[in-house]
């Protein structure tokens, strides 16, 4: 077994207790939610008997340990249960909605990186300068804005006042038909189908929420880029490179930047997890059919299965993401690059 494979396996093994922990915590958390879902879902005029009937059919009349056992057994068989508020199997809901959230989050992250990384590099090259200060104020202002406020303000300005943005109605204007689902990402699916009108329509819907989210994620990325560029630029190998007479741009981008990327990628992972959470609010403002808004609704009505499914899928996503980051690490770190194996 190659050391790399072993390392990956080790990472996977390490993730197991985390996943178990998440299953336990999400189960306990949902059971701690106030209210009796059976009463809630029995409907407006249900009597005692029909509430009891529903409680029984939901398995809520059994003691907690047994409920947990049933839950785990179902999980192992790939059954996430049925969401009561949406009426669909949780797994269907998640597979329908996860791509929406991911598309939004990833677009926002790409946008954010495209702005924040150059900003950070620029700031690091002339620390203390006016542009450094401006950049700092800009990104800090971005992260200081509550996302729901930014979102509403953007809708008001660009849709209501200026009328240049499309109506904030989910992923696609209702006159369009969503592209055949391949990845669930409308941009990718529409491109695959060669349907550029739909692609453009989906893109237009995506701009405002993505900008809202990107504003919020600028700061950590720009800050980390600046900090790691600073430490890279002040390190010995850069000094050596400079002394060896390499030109400035090669030093900056060829050597310093490549080294500075490592902590930036780690930060990206954090930011990704963070913005999936922040998504909850953005999705609510833009009627975005993602899992964030799904989780909020489910939480408010104590929809156990939906909350558990959401939390679990998030955790799995997070674990996978960390794994991917670790792998990316080895790709961009010159010390553990593929060729040095």
């Amino acid at each position: 077994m190659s050391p790399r494979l072993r390392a990956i396996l080790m990472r996977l093994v390490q993730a197991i207790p985390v996943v178990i922990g998440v299953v336990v915590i999400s189960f306990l958390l949902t059971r701690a939610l106030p209210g009796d879902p059976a009463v809630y879902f029995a409907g407006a005029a249900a009597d005692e008997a029909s509430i009891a009937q529903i409680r029984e059919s939901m398995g809520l009349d059994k003691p907690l340990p047994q409920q947990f056992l049933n839950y785990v057994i179902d999980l192992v068989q790939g059954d996430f249960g049925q969401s009561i508020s949406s009426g669909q199997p949780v797994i269907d809901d998640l597979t329908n909605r996860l791509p929406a959230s991911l598309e939004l989050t990833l677009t926002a992250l790409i946008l954010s990186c495209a702005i924040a990384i150059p900003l950070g590099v620029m700031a690091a090259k002339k620390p203390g300068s006016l542009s450094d200060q401006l950049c700092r104020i800009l990104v800090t202002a971005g992260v200081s804005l509550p996302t729901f406020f930014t979102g509403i303000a953007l809708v008001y300005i660009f849709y209501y006042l200026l009328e240049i943005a499309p109506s904030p109605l989910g992923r696609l204007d209702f006159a369009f038909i969503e592209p055949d689902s391949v990845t669930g990402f409308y941009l990718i699916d529409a491109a695959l189908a060669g349907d550029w009108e739909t692609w453009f329509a989906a893109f237009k819907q995506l701009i405002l929420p993505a900008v809202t989210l990107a504003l919020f994620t600028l700061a950590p990325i720009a800050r980390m880029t600046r900090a790691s560029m600073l430490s890279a630029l002040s390190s010995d190998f850069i000094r050596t490179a400079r002394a060896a007479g390499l030109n400035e741009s090669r030093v900056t981008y060829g050597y310093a930047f490549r080294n500075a990327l490592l902590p930036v990628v780690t930060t990206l992972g954090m930011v990704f997890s963070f913005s999936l959470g922040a998504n909850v609010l953005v999705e609510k403002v833009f009627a975005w059919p993602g899992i964030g808004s799904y989780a909020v609704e489910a939480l408010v009505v104590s929809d156990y299965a939906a909350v558990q499914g959401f939390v679990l899928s998030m955790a799995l996503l997070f674990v996978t993401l960390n794994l991917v980051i670790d792998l990316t690490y080895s790709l961009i770190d010159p010390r553990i690059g593929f060729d040095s194996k």
Partner: protein
Amino acid sequence: MTLSTSRRNFLKMSGGVLGASSLPLLKIMPVQAANKDVIVAVTGQTINSLDLHRKGTNRASYQVAVNCYDRLVSFGTKEVPGAGLSYDYSKIEPELAESWTISEDGLKLTFKLKPNAKFWDGTKVTAHDVKWSFDRAVSVGGFPSVQMKAGGLVKPEQFEAIDDETFVITLAQASKLTLPDLAVPVPFVINSKVAKAHATENDPWATEFLHKTPAGSGAFKVAKWMPGEQLVYERNDDWVGGPLPAAKRVIVREVPSPATRRALIEKGNVQLSFNIPNKDAKELADKVDVYSTPIENCMHCVGLNYTFEPFQDPNVRKAVAYAIPYEEIFQTAAYGRGAPLWGGPEKIDSIQWPRKSPYFTDLDKAKELMAQSGFASGFSVPFSISLGLSDWMEPTALLIQENLAKIGITTEIEKIPGANWRTAALVEKKLPLHLENFGGWLNTPDYYFFWAYKKGHLFNSSNYMNPEIETLVDETLHMPMDDPKYAPNIMRMFEIAFEDLPRIPLWQPALNVAANGAKDYEFWFHRQLDVRPLKGT
């Protein structure tokens, strides 16, 4: 059609509606493309099932039962001055039934079905389908069975299909509520052959199948359902239940943010915004068509729980009633929409309900009553409101809180999340001071009292119990309204209710709907959107 309608299928289905030629146009002008044939409505609620009988189906989903299924009978339509069209409780009209007769003793109802009524799959609607559907409604439990019970329909043995076109209901007790109860969304008629084909041993009523795939004879079919996003109705051209709807396609979009909904309707991007906030209704009234219909048999009220010691003192209850700043609440929480329910005459002179209580804002009188009570030095009490209804409950509670402080009652406002609200307020009935908003589907005062004033009944959130009310409700509930004993009994009920004050009426709320490019919206007691009468303009 089901959830998984593919793009190609969808295009095929919509071909007849949108027309192949209009499709490219539609893509270029997505918003304006909504022409007369297509109506787009927005709502803040989520439709979570296409089957009303299924467990866990929420209120917003009832509209599917209304638009996609038929009942034996329906209510007529009337014009409400200043508020457009409304259903008419006093007029029962045929839907699937062509005619009906009621036996002399009122115990046997015989329905003749329309011979040309067809389900969407082209098969004939028979009395056996009606029987299966009614059996289902009384057997699945939960809300459908409870609602059926209100009309005296409790067990399958009561229903009989004599032949394909004759259906008979047998009652244990004649009741004025039975026929109207057949016109509520619950007893809808399902294509039993299709449903039975998908029934399983664990699921004899095919709830899993009908949950996603309606099988009815109604005016609209479901062309597409994306839970949490939209529901697309497509007209059933063979409908015989009533006049053929004008719109070929109605799209119901779910938009959680009220601000976004307002912008959409204001700009005309959508033709209808269902259940808009009172404030928007007031402000949009001169820009778009706004229908504000006071909801029949419904009132927003303050609940004083009889298990909370200070509220057992009649002087305290009356003091609270005199301390409430009614007019301010009506203006700030309801923006003047709906009907005031305070400052009425001392003497009860009619059986109109909801009606104005004899109380009004008078802080001096309230202080006087507090001084006479056993709690002259005041007390403190939590004031509970529902998080889901905070748009009207919060301003109301804040204003009441302010005035109660002036008479020595200190309150702390407690917002209870949706899942817990029903349990705490209605099932456990443990909230000392709270707001409540029950509305009865069947529009008679006795029906309201049955739910809200009888001991142990669900909406009696005040734990109120008065032996005289118990007997009066039992007597009047099934009594015909033209019975000479009916009116005096009802008026006596009102008298007791206003004297005992377990619920202090505030105002009768309105259901607000804004239209911009659609007309003939009709209000229904079930407070869901009936898309059948809508016309594009």
